[in-house]
């Protein structure tokens, strides 16, 4: 039975998980952008960020051919540069089998968004069928969206149940729960939704900021709210949940800021692709561009990195 008052439900949950000091968070994250990371440390950071990237294409115009070239890029990011592979390619369910064939035995995972991404506004049965379909096609990881409508209405039980059912449908596949932070409106809500999701998840599953399909995506501030929730949850329960900011992280410098946030909040145990990921499409080329700059000492042009930018 849904609770009668969503206000009361939100208030009770807030009481349980604690609220977020908005000004404190914003001041804290502003500090992350002032750290100076140079030379070896920078190269390490860039390569680590590269190894954490979920190279993503989520467009209506995706084709098997495009997925194939995406997979090649994922396995072999740049000619003449020694780098790790990216963590995963992230595609729509219909593209999973093409991606699976594309990555082969390279160790790059195939992640698939599912559950009526990005809005999630369809029947649970349909959403679960989508997850099962993607897993059957070979997806190693499933990125689901939460039922924001249920959360905002204070119907936390429904949100929780739906995540459990998706988790069951995933089988052995890793689950990433997208909170879609821009639709949750406040930091308090982000923290609450993080705790609800983490309460259901297995160690090694992820919570994720956004779909990348709305105006506001991953920022240092909402990343910070979520990794602090992960830290507090870990200290309480001993269960380590991963984190994936997605959308809007376009530059290598931004990705280093996020890594600094992780280092200073969660520590080294989270500085690997098993516990931290970047959902991004254009980030990879900027990482490569900066790595190549470090290697050669010369600033590089973006069009040398398979960017579809105009040849200016």
């Amino acid at each position: 039975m849904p609770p009668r008052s969503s206000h009361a439900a939100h208030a009770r949950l807030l009481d349980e998980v604690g609220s977020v000091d908005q000004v404190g968070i914003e001041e804290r994250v502003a500090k992350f952008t002032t750290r100076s990371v140079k030379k070896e440390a920078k190269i390490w950071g860039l390569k680590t960020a590269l190894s954490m990237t979920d190279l993503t294409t989520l467009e209506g115009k995706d084709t098997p051919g495009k997925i194939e070239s995406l997979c090649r890029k994922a396995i072999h990011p740049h000619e003449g540069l020694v780098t790790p592979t990216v963590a995963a390619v992230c595609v729509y369910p219909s593209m999973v089998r093409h991606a699976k064939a594309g990555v082969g035995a390279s160790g790059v995972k195939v992640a698939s968004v599912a559950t009526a991404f990005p809005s999630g506004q369809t029947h649970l049965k349909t959403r679960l069928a989508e997850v099962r379909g993607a897993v059957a096609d070979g997806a190693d990881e499933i990125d689901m969206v939460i039922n924001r409508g249920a959360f905002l209405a204070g119907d936390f039980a429904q949100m929780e149940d739906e995540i459990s059912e998706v988790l069951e449908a995933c089988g052995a596949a890793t689950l990433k729960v997208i909170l879609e932070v821009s639709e949750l409106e406040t930091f308090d809500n982000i923290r609450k939704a993080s705790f609800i999701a983490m309460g259901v998840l297995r160690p090694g599953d992820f919570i994720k900021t956004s779909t990348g399909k709305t105006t506001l995506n991953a920022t240092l501030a909402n990343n910070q709210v979520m990794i602090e929730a992960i830290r507090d949850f870990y200290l309480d329960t001993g269960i380590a949940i991963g984190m994936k900011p997605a959308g809007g992280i376009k530059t290598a410098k931004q990705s280093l800021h996020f890594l600094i946030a992780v280092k200073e909040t969660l520590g080294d145990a989270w500085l690997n692709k098993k516990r931290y990921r970047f959902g991004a499409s254009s980030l990879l080329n900027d990482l490569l561009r900066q790595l190549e700059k470090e290697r050669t000492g010369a600033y590089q042009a973006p069009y040398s990195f398979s960017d579809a930018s105009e040849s200016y």
Partner: protein
Amino acid sequence: MSAQPKSRIPVTKTPKVYIGGAFVRSESARTFKVTDRSGAFFANIPQCTRKDLRNAVEAAAKAGPGWARRTPYNRAQILYRLAEMIEARSGELVASLVQFGARRADAEKGVAVGVDRMIHYAGWADKYAQLLGSVNPVSSAHFNFTVPEPMGVVGVVAPDSPPLLGLISMIAPVIASGNTVVALASETVPYPAVLLGEMLATSDLPGGVVNLLTGFRKELVPTFATHAQIRAIYASAGPDDRKALRLGAAASVKRVRFSGTEGAAWLNDAAQGLERIGDFVELKTTWHPIGA
């Protein structure tokens, strides 16, 4: 009671560099002192770093496609408008040149020639393509023609003397054909370039088409040479800088052109013309099949 003149607190100006259509300080927050002809302190000028240069190149690359897509006629209008803006504030430019050591008559002449030079290239903007391009005779059923296209981001290293006319004379032919510019102003007399930036900002020139840096040559020349996205260099340089530019430009196969003009020769008509536009275009030849 008569009003006594109050002593005012002097309002001194913080010169900033013009990058991407905005006036910014160096990202490094470094400045260097500039003194006027009497040796008195004038201002702290941004001492730009290679990162500022990198940012300027990003801005120039962003502005590039839009600027190149404009019609030649429109680019001509904008260059002419730029000349109007310089003309209207020529007194200020003359005063600043005099303040840093130029004779008044020379400064006046220099600014007037600078305005005329801008108009000269405004005139060329919709005419150079007809002269640099061609229709080529070929012995097959093709219509074969060559058109000049802009190269992209061009780095300009301006002379110390004359600080303003040299800068204007080197920027104008490069942007006339649709290139965008990252320019390093004179190290010894940088302030007139700061003023020029303010005039660029109030003309119709889109932000990022011309970016003006101030700072030290020895710090910036190596980055001008090696930055892969700078497609050509137009430099007024001594033997050491020439060598550094040529060597650095090799890896990115960049075109390097040196200005042979010195001192008062910048005033001459020989310091302007079509060849300078031609130095910074790529020629594209098209083979178009036609019926026999």
